[in-house]
């Protein structure tokens, strides 16, 4: 049983992080906090991929003499680019929040909806 727990511990934490992010995205009314929630969700996916690529007794995938086993390089490539794309899209989300604040003077969903309803 301990082997079972240790073997799946990474994935369970990933699920906890993912659900924490999802909860923030659904439950919070604040647009900035929603983006923070998306970021937590995103990082949990990164950890999922990198955990799957780890190989017992392996090392970083840089070829050298006398190393029997390497970690899987493919998830590293995918996640490396995803992180940089992720910050660019986060910036896009934050820019939208700034513009929404300029238009409605609020970043709280309920207040924005109220302002929408009161407009003709």
């Amino acid at each position: 049983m301990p082997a079972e727990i240790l073997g799946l511990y990474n994935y369970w934490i990933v699920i906890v992080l993912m659900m924490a992010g999802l909860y923030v995205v659904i439950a919070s009314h604040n647009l900035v906090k929603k983006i923070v929630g998306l970021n937590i969700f995103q990082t949990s996916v990164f950890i999922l991929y990198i955990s799957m690529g780890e190989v017992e007794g392996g090392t970083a995938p840089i070829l050298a003499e006398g190393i029997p086993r390497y970690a899987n390089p493919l998830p590293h490539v995918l996640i490396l680019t995803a992180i940089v794309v992720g910050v660019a899209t986060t910036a896009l989300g934050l820019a939208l929040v700034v513009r929404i604040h300029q238009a409605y003077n609020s970043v709280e969903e309920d207040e924005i909806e109220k302002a929408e309803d009161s407009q003709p």
Partner: protein
Amino acid sequence: MIDIVLLSFLAVIALAIVRLRDLFAVVMLTGFYSLLSAALFVVLDAVDVAFTEAAVGAGIATILMLGTLGRIAGEPREHRERPWLPMLVVLITGGALLYGTLDMPHYGDPNAPVNLHVVPRYIEDSLAEIGVPNIVTSVLASYRGYDTLGETTVILTAAIGVMGLLQGRRRKTPGSKAPPASSNKRPRRASGVTGMLGNTMQHHLILHVIAKLLVPFILLFALYVQFHGDFGPGGGFQAGVIFAAGFILYGLIFGVNDAGLVASPATVRLLIAAGLLLYAGVGVATMLLGGQFLDYSVLSTEPIKGQHLGIMLIEFGVGTTVAATMVRLFYLFSR
């Protein structure tokens, strides 16, 4: 063992972020969360990923969020109500996912399906085919060169989007005299990161001295990561974000105006496109030389030398686009 401790800390921080309502604290914890996950990536042998996450998550993303908070100053606390329905949704989804993990191959299993397809070829043949010891670089730049070109394009697209949203409507169309929106009437105050942290930072002697000492080394390290990425951990994405982080540190402490004198927003904007153009240009050059798009082998008489040249050029293009995009984003969010 270390990874278990780090993972547990990550879960604790994520739950703290969920509970906290003070947005400033939430953003700072997010930076800490990213730094911890970067440490975790080192333990999991993903050194290239760790570089990027440390520079992006703990540095640039946190600065951008602080910049946003500075611009929406006023009420940095969130409202919340009826959290039970979301909680139910999250618990059911989480339970289903948890059930799904029971069939997953265990952590570190060398015979997991993910390690058996394509990857043995990368590990066994990449040195002969590409001639680059860092497998991550050869997969990123050569085997999956199309994919990376696409990712770089997404970064350019996101930068264009942010510029379109935040650059303001300075162009006055003659004839249309719309009354200025109420938000434009407000007296212009220092806003963004520099506004939030106060311009007082420009007078902190200790910060000045430390930054002057650190910035050259950070920039030098970024260049090392850029051009040594074939042999050690590194490459265009990592170098780009590290270079940008060093530059942003300068901008934070000496003021955005001083940073603008070093690299004007217009120059930076050109560089974003120039990097991607270099990348795609290498692809076109290989086609003109009779190869396929992004097949670097035709760039030189020996295929391995051609691969090396091609990878160096496109990594330089990626680094330019990434660094310029991050600096441009910093300028936009700190105005």
